[in-house]
């Protein structure tokens, strides 16, 4: 859900710039790390959508990419490895007026957090999930990840990985996500637009982002992606056709597609289905405890 730039008394405020979303500390990412481009894109997207820092909650797990909330000016939760989607779901349900943006890595989201990924998508929780997919475990200094290519040499696969990688896009489609896109951190303008679409989308949106690890992944570096990425929209892709979306997502040769693979508009989110949220505003702001009528009903049921 997107909120316009208005104060509580209805006055319009000047739109913030991307710079205003710069966090209190400078990123400690390696020079050239793809994650800079993602940070930059979310800062632009937030500015262009007219958001204010207190309206956003970023939630991350653990990893290089998961350090994101500290570098972005908004509320943030830097939680446990793999648990960001669970924490974010709780926060969103407790205060559905927040724009909750989840940021993390491929290991965090598709590996240790895989169960939450499946079920958060299935529930269509109204979250924006930005996965900085560098096909490696960066923070732990370069081990194989669920998206590493078969044969890849890493510190934990010194003779080459023998496992095929997971496809985040087809997984997200099958699991029931309703906005499924792929971005490339080397194309900030394109990524910004995809992220804007993801934030504006009501429902679970996931953007799997090629965000090269310049230190530990020599296979999937900027030259690798620059030569291959093609935008789906340049080919007039139909974003309502899930089979076509899967076909495009599985293409992994000279052409690798970025852009919006699929979007389902109008499907109810978990929050929409929850009777308890229908009226009364965010749960977090409601009065605590039981009223006389509730007490009477509970007790009479126990007698």
């Amino acid at each position, binding site marked *: 859900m997107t909120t316009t730039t208005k104060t509580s008394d209805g006055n319009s405020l000047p739109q913030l710039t991307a710079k205003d979303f710069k966090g209190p500390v400078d990123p400690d990412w390696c020079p050239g790390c793809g994650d800079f481009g993602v940070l930059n894109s979310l800062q632009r997207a937030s500015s262009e959508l007219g958001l204010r820092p207190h309206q956003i*909650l970023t939630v991350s797990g653990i990893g290089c990419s998961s350090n994101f909330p500290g570098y972005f000016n908004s509320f943030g939760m830097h939680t446990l490895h793999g648990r960001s989607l669970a*924490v974010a779901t709780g926060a969103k*349900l407790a205060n559905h007026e927040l724009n909750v943006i989840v940021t993390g890595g491929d290991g965090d989201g598709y590996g240790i957090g895989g169960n939450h990924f499946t079920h958060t998508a299935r529930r269509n929780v109204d979250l924006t999930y930005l996965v900085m997919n560098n096909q490696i475990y960066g923070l732990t200094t370069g081990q194989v990840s669920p998206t590493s290519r078969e044969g890849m040499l890493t510190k934990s696969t010194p003779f080459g990985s023998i496992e095929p990688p997971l496809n985040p896009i087809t997984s997200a489609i099958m699991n029931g996500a309703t906005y499924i896109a792929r971005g490339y951190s080397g194309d900030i303008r394109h990524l910004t637009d995809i992220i804007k679409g993801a934030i504006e989308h009501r429902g679970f949106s996931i953007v799997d982002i090629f965000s090269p690890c310049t230190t530990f992944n020599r296979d999937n570096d900027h030259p690798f992606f620059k030569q291959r990425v093609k935008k789906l929209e340049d080919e007039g892709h139909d974003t309502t056709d899930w089979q076509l979306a899967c076909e495009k997502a599985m293409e992994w040769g000279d052409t690798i597609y970025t852009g919006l693979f699929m979007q389902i508009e109008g499907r109810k989110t978990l929050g929409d289905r929850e009777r*308890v949220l229908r009226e009364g505003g965010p749960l977090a702001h409601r009065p*605590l405890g039981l009223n006389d009528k509730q007490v009477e009903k509970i*007790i009479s049921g*126990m007698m």
Partner: protein
Amino acid sequence: MSSRNFDFVLAIGGEAGQGIATPGDILARIFIRRGLHLYTYNAYQSIIRGGHILLFMRVSDQQVDNHGDKLDLLLCLNQDTMDRHLSLMGAGSTVVYNADTITPGDVPDGVQLCPLPVSELTESRNRLIQNTIAVGTVMALMGQDFEALEESLSLRFNRMGQEVVDENVAAARAGYDYANENLMIKTDQVPAGPKPLAVWAGNEAVAMGGAAAGVKFYAAYPMSPSTGVLHWMAQHARDLGIMVRQIEDEIGVANMVIGAAHAGARSMCATSGGGFALMTEAVGAAGMMEIPVVFIDVQRAGPSTGVPTKTEQGDLWQALGASQGDFQKFIVAPTSALDAYKTMPELFNLTDKYQCPGMVLIDLLIGEGRATFDPDEVDMQPEINRGALLTEAAQQNGYKRYENTESGISPRAIAGLEGYVHVVATDEHDEDSTLLSDEFTDPTKRRMMVEKRDRKMSTVLDDVSAPSLEGPADADVTLIGWGSTWGVIKEAVELLQEQGVRANHLPFKWIVPFHADEVTEIVNSAKKTIMIENNFSGQFYRYMRSETGLSVDGHIRKYDGEPFAPHHIVEGVLEHLARETDIFVPTEILKV
């Protein structure tokens, strides 16, 4: 001396799927409407059909806190019940059974066998009708009027239509009349209490306690014996405006409640030992991020999957050791369903004040056991105090979430509050939540933050009650227990008194924080001390020793999955007094 005028234990035995719960509910309703106190314990197996179940119901004119020693009446719904439990029969007791299908066993002298010719008493082909006939017989044997039974049957069956009500009333009448004409009826009338009482299971009590404390978010993954909390919450979610969610696993549960709590909702979750093991990384995360959340562990017999439907006080060290590193926490072991209810609002206020996780340890015995309570004595609108929570938006900058205050408690803003933008982190962080590893790992700051969090707790002992002796201060022997053994030890003290042994009772409820000084004083002035625990290794004993250096003179331990009955403790104490036994383990076996 027991001041009870009326104390009656009845048990219903059968197999899963035979509908034991229904006669149990019907009888319970009659008793509580009459104002009688009730305590039930259901001994069962992890099986949906077959197996064996024995439901104990103890009824009295006074509060009852355990299932008692001997049975006054056994209702056998199958042969197994007859074969397994006759040793539980007390003097002057009665065994009721279906004479068409069950062969009577050898009963001790003075025990009345009451065969019911079920096929002569009903034409119904409903397999469950024998239960209703038997309930009629039980009511007659207890000298109760039929009207109360009729009313209870209508309440129970009216959702299924008048025909079902009529069929059951007729069957109950047949059983009732048959007993009056053919069996020896107890002559002393069942008394009535001053007003009707209500009944709850401990799992319902903790759920209600949470609701009364203002819980707005509850998440769970089903696991016996904690599932009753989820069921109550789910049933009441809409009426009470509580978000109740079943999540993919307990890891998700624990992390989700943390997210909800950080957004400002009072949040909790319940599970049993295995699920709690999955939650533990998140317990420490709540400690590090200083987010108040409540975790309930309804303990069952472990280790691992263990004995899913049996009770044990076996998770104490798991709770103490839940999650890595030093962090602030509460661990509380309520002593009964009523105490569990009252503990919840208190714990929520404490976790809000001290901004840390709270853990509640109950067990199958409290969680699934049912007990009566007087609704007038239960405060359903307890005080709610959220501590240093900021709720008013402000136009400002420079809020430090983890400000190094004198008290160690830093004013807490929830996510979304204008003027208080900040990040919380599971990594060690500075006052303004900058990660220490983002600058360089700064030992001075690290020490400051560790000390800040610890300093919060400097006043905590004043906020929870210290353990104190129940019974005569100069007793010859002091029985020490924790959590759910309170009710059974309390009665054992009375029984010992009747046998001329002056005993008193030191029950523990708060585990963390621990009143080491008060405990040391009490234990040091006791003449003889015996520690009683429903586990193998003496988990609480080892904890008390680690906190105080104290030891005790003897132990009574039970780890067969069944709870203590009062006589187990009496026997253990007498054995300890007679000779130097180190650990007494009751070996009488309940065959369930």
